[in-house]
């Protein structure tokens, strides 16, 4: 599987199944979005910090989770400062960083395959509504495999465009890429059909 964010470990958080962790994250996020007073947000930060210590993934992993915000967060503080004043700006941005860190912690302690399996299980009740859950699971695993294939195709198309000096032309990039992806998809579909998928 493509390398994800998962860090192996044996902590309590690692041992909780993926489903409850995902549901817990969704519920916690919804509750945290209601908290906007400095003490409440301070409590959230403390709680997330404690969870990171419990998981024992290290500071470097924690930083990697919030690193994508390093450009956006200062800008956000500035905008909120102008719109709402200094204290809400710091509090609300801190709340956002804490939430992103918490979400990152779920994936640090859960394998990507376990998350996908939990998504499949979550879809299972929809079977009664006519959702083909086995087909959905097949699509998910096919997509995981397709990511590197299409990425390699994109690289080839980009190289070809560069060789012709048309590297800044979106059409010259995307049309061959999409046609190539469609051809590949239809070949894949034929292969699945040849193996009796629709019988």
């Amino acid at each position, binding site marked *: 599987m493509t390398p*994800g964010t*998962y860090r192996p470990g044996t902590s309590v958080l690692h041992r909780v199944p993926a489903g409850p962790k995902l549901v817990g994250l969704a519920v916690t996020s919804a509750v945290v*979005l209601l908290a*906007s007073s400095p003490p409440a947000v301070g409590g959230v930060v403390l709680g997330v910090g404690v969870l990171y210590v419990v998981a024992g993934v290290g500071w470097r992993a924690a930083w990697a*989770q919030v690193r994508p*915000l390093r*450009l*956006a*967060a200062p*800008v*956000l503080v500035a*905008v*909120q400062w102008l*719109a*709402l004043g200094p204290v*809400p700006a710091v509090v*609300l941005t801190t709340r956002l960083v804490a*939430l*992103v860190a*918490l979400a*990152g912690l779920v*994936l640090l302690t859960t394998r*990507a*395959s376990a*998350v*996908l399996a939990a*998504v499949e299980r979550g879809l299972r009740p929809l079977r009664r509504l*006519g*959702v*083909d*859950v*086995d*087909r959905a699971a*097949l*699509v*998910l695993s*096919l*997509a995981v*495999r*397709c*990511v590197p294939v*299409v990425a390699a195709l*994109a690289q080839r198309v980009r190289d070809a465009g560069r060789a012709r000096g048309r590297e800044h032309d*979106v*059409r010259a990039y*995307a*049309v061959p890429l*999409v*046609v190539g992806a*469609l*051809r590949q*998809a*239809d070949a*894949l*579909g034929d292969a*699945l*059909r040849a193996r009796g*998928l*629709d*019988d």
Partner: protein
Amino acid sequence: MTDASPGRTSGTTRTATTTTGPVAGPRGPLALDAGDAARVATFAALIAALGMPGSIALFGNAVPITLQTLGVMLAGALLGAWRGSLAVATFLALAAAGLPVLAGGRGGLGAFVGPSAGYLVGFLAGAAVVGWLVDRLGRVTFGRVLVACLVGGVAVVYAFGVPVQSVVTGVPLATTARLSLAFLPGDVLKALAAAAITVGVVRAYPAARRSGRTAGRPAAAGPASS
């Protein structure tokens, strides 16, 4: 493609009875056959690939800009409403599982609780609306697809993205909306590109929209052989 296509019910009676596992209801217009499953999975990967060349964070906003929305528009325009939004849903599931498929090589659940969460949900609705509109076109022309992409890929995505960003960041809705205008020129350019690419792809690969036609309007299109 869905109900008894001429290719696979050729005379023998074994087709209906050898299904393994539980069958989820009758195969209606929303069912996916093998070809659809492959297309949905490939387009999920394509949306990921279009997000990769790098994201540019515009000053004054917390959401990165990439070609990812271009992939969303293309999924709707080429796969149709149902398969297009399924491709987006598959892409979002990959992102949620932590694969680095979101714009600029990001991934993970953080994106679903951060400022861009509403845009991700908007992608789903956007692909559905683009597909719904394109499915209703008599012919795929640049102007018509452009309108579909502007309505579904820009207006609908913003309608989800801006309010959620406002809630998550605590910035008032009007201010968030004003700041989001900075993305509008880029997104209009992407809608133009999506329309041009859709027309180009349909011309280069006439089977591109085939399965969308047959599944969306079973009576209108002929058998799925070409």
